[in-house]
C-alpha cells in the first residue's frame, strides 16, 4: 500500500481520502443537468473574475457594466437583440445538426454564402432595384437559404456517400466561402475600386423599428429588424421538427443510437444530407438577415465569428431551440458590452471560459464523483 500512495501523488500522504470517478449507471434526475449547467456558468464567471482581477479590473463592477451596457435601456437592448438575431439562426442550425451528432463546424461559411445569395439578388441584379420590399424579402430569403443549404449539402453528401469526415469538410469550406465572397467584393461588385459592393436599394432592406419612428416616437434609433422574427419563427419550426415530427424522431434516434436506427429501417444517408442542408439553410438565413437587415451591402467584415459562436450557443442551450434564443440574447449582450471594455479581448476570453467549463461539466453528467476513504478501500 505504501507503494500505491507514492504513485498516486503527494495528496494521499496528507489526506486519507481519494477522489474516484465512476460511470453513471442510472439516468440522472431532471434537475441535475440544469444545476450542473448553472454551476458551470458560475465557475466560468468566477474564473473570468480572476482573469479580470489579474488584468487589473474589478470583476463585480465589470459584470455590472456588461449588464448595464446591454440591458440598461431600450436602445442598448435593441442593439443586443440585433446582435442576437444571427446568433439565434446560426445556433438553431448547429443544434439540429448536433442533435444527429453531425458536427457542422461550417456555419460561418454557410452564413457567408447566405449573405452572398441575398446580395446576388440585389446586385446581379435578379430583381430590378425598384421592386417592392414585399418581393425583395422572400426572394432574398430564398436565395440565402438555398445558398446556405448548398454549402451544407456538399459535406452532407460527402459524408453520406463516401463517409468523409464532416468536421474537416465543413471547416475547410468556411475558408472557401470567405474567399468566394472576397472575389466578388474585390473584382465583380466592387464599388469604384473599394472592397465593398454598392449600398442596397432601400427597398431591399429588412424593415427596422426605427423606420416607424414617425408613427411611434419610442422606436427612434431602434435598429431591431425583421430578422429577429425569422429567428423566433425558426425556433418554433425547429422545435416542431425535432420534438413533434416523425423526421425529428428519426434524427434523434440516429443521434442517440445509429445502429438501432439502422435496424429500424431509417435511411441514415438521406437524413445526413437533409440535416446538413437544413443546418446550412438556417445559417444561410442568418447571413441573409444580417446583410439585408444590418449591413445593407456586401463587404469583407460581415461576421465577428457568428458561425463559431453558434456552436457555443447550441451547446450552452443543450440543443434546445427555445434555450437557443435566450442564450443568443445573453451572448449578444456579451459581444455588445464586450466591445466597450478596453482593452478589448477580455470579453472574448470570458466566452471561451464559459464554453470550456460547459464542455467539462458534461463529464459530471456521465460520471459520478465519489470520495472514498483510503482505509475503506484497503
Amino acid at each position, binding site marked *: 500500500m505504501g507503494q500505491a500512495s507514492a504513485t498516486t501523488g503527494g495528496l494521499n500522504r496528507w489526506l486519507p481520502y481519494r477522489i474516484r470517478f465512476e460511470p453513471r449507471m442510472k439516468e440522472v434526475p*431532471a*434537475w441535475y*443537468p*440544469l444545476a450542473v449547467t*448553472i454551476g458551470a456558468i458560475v465557475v466560468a464567471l468566477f474564473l473570468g473574475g480572476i482573469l*479580470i482581477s489579474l*488584468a487589473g*479590473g*474589478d470583476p463585480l*463592477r*465589470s*459584470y*455590472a*457594466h456588461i*449588464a*448595464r*451596457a*446591454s*440591458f*440598461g435601456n431600450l*436602445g*442598448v437592448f435593441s*442593439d443586443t437583440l*440585433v*446582435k442576437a438575431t444571427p446568433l439565434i439562426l446560426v445556433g438553431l442550425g448547429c443544434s439540429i445538426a448536433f442533435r444527429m451528432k453531425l458536427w457542422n463546424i461550417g456555419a460561418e461559411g454557410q452564413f457567408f454564402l447566405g449573405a452572398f445569395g441575398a446580395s446576388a439578388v440585389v446586385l446581379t441584379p435578379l430583381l430590378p432595384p425598384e421592386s417592392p420590399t414585399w418581393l425583395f424579402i422572400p426572394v432574398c430569403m430564398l436565395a440565402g437559404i438555398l445558398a446556405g443549404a448548398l454549402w451544407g449539402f456538399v459535406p452532407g453528401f460527402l459524408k453520406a456517400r463516401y463517409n468523409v469526415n464532416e468536421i474537416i469538410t465543413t471547416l475547410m469550406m468556411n475558408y472557401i466561402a470567405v474567399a468566394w465572397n472576397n472575389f466578388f467584393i*474585390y*473584382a*465583380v461588385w*466592387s464599388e*469604384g*475600386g*473599394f*472592397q465593398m459592393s454598392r*449600398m442596397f436599394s432601400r427597398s431591399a432592406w429588412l424593415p427596422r423599428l426605427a423606420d416607424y419612428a414617425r408613427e411611434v416616437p419610442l422606436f427612434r*434609433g431602434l*435598429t431591431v429588424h425583421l430578422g429577429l422574427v425569422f429567428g423566433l419563427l425558426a425556433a418554433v419550426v425547429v422545435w416542431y421538427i425535432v420534438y413533434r415530427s416523425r423526421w425529428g424522431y428519426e434524427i434523434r434516434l440516429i443521434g442517440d443510437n445509429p445502429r438501432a436506427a439502422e435496424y429500424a429501417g431509417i435511411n441514415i444517408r438521406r437524413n445526413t444530407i437533409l440535416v446538413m442542408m437544413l443546418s446550412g439553410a438556417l445559417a444561410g438565413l442568418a447571413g441573409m438577415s*444580417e446583410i439585408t437587415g*444590418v*449591413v445593407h*451591402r456586401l*463587404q*469583407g*467584415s*460581415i461576421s*465577428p465569428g457568428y458561425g463559431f459562436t453558434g456552436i457555443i450557443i447550441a451547446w450552452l442551450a443543450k440543443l*434546445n431551440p*427555445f*434555450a437557443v434564443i*435566450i442564450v443568443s440574447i*445573453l451572448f449578444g*449582450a456579451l459581444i*455588445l458590452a464586450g*466591445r*466597450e*471594455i*478596453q*482593452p*478589448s*479581448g*477580455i470579453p472574448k476570453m470570458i466566452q471561451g471560459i464559459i464554453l470550456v467549463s460547459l464542455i467539462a461539466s458534461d463529464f459530471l453528467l456521465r460520471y459520478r464523483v465519489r470520495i472514498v476513504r483510503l482505509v475503506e478501500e484497503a
Partner: protein
Amino acid sequence: MQQRMIWRLAVLMVIAALLLAACQPQPAAPAETAAPQATEEAAPAAEEVAGFQIPAIQEGKFNVAMVLIGPHDDGGWSQAHYEGLEYIQQNVPNTHVAYIENVPEGADSEQIFRSLSRKGFNLIFGTSFGYMDPMEIVAGEFPDVTYIHISGFKSNETNFGNLFGAMEVMKYLAGMLAGARAKMDGNPKLGYMATFPIPEELRLGNAIALGMRRTCPECTMDVRWINTWHDPIIEKEASASLFDAGAQVVFTGADTPAVADVAQEKGKWGVTYDWYGSCKVERCLTAPYWNWGPVYAKITAGVIDGTYKPGWDYFDADTGSLGLFGFMEGQELTPGLAELPPEVIAEVKDLVAKSLAGEFTRFDVFAGPIKDNQGNTVVPEGEALQQIDLDQFPEMGLGCTYCMKWWAEGITAELPDTGN
C-alpha cells in the same frame, strides 16, 4: 415537460439577475476621477470604470470619443491617433476624451457609433476608411453630434466631415531618401507594401516613386497588395517577399513597423509609417508620420465655439501635423540616413523646411511633367493634379480630370483590377 419548465424558470432568473444588475446605481467612479482630471495632467486619457477603460461622458465637459481600427498602442496608425486624442485632452480646456479600440469596419462599427452618440458624446472621430458609411448613417440620426471621418471621401457638410492630410509630401521626401540609399548600396530597387487598391494607396505609392526618381533615376519599385490595414503576420510575410524579390528599401502602407523588423533580419532597409515612434531599429531608414494632435485640437476647439464647419478638410505640412522622422525638431538622422550623400540630406532638409512653411505642398509633388509606367504623359509640363485628382478614380464619377488611376514611371507592377 418538467425539465423544460425548470429551464424556463432558470432562464427567467438569469435575465432577472442581469436586469437587476443593470438597474444598479452608477458606480461612483466618475466622481473619483473627476477631481484629478480637472488639473489636466498627462494622466490616462479615458476615464477608468472598474479598472477598465469604458467610454463614458462627463457632465459639464465637452466629450470627445475616438473609434480605432487597431489597438491604441499598435505602434503605428492607431497609436498616432490615440496620441492625438491625448493631445486634445491636454490642450483644449474643459474636454473629456475616451476611445474604443479594435473596432472592425462595417456593421459592427455602426452600432459603436450609435452607442457613443446615445451616450452623449459631442464629437466623435472615426479613424478608418470603412467607418465612412456607418458614420454618415449615424450622423443623420444624431444632428447634435459632430462626426469627423479620417480618410474616405464623404461629408454631409453639416455634422459629418471628412479629414485627411497630405502625407504624399512626406512619402515623396522619404522616396528621395530611399532612392539615394538604394543607389548608394548599388541595388536600385525599392518595394512598396500597399494595403488596398484605393486612390490613397496609389497616390502615396506614386509619391514615393516620384521622389525616388528625383534622387535615383535608374531606380524601380515593386508593389505587393496585402489587403489589410493591420495584420502583423501578413505584413511580415509581404515585406520578406519584397526583400526576397530583390528590394533594397521597402515602404509600408500598413500600420505596424514590420518592414523595419524584417529589414533588420535581412540586412536591408525599411521605411515605417504612421507614428514617430515606429522607427526604432537600426535598419529603419526613416518614417513619414502623422502628428494628429494640433489638427485635432484645432477642430475640437472649432466645434466647441462653432467656428469649424465639417466638410472636406485636407491639411498640409504647415499645420504641424505631418512629419518625417529624422528631420523634425529635436530629432537626429538615423544611422542609415547619416551615411547618405550630404547634398541629398541638404536637399531634403530644405524641402522639409519649405513644406513646414507651406511653400512645398502636395500640388508641388504632383506637378507636371509626370509620366506613367506605360510611357504616357499623365500630367503635362506646367500643370499639376488638382485636389479632386488626388483621391478619385474615374469610375467614381465625381469629375476628376487626371484622376489617380495610374502608376508613375519606375513602378514595375500592374495597376490593380478594381472592377467596373
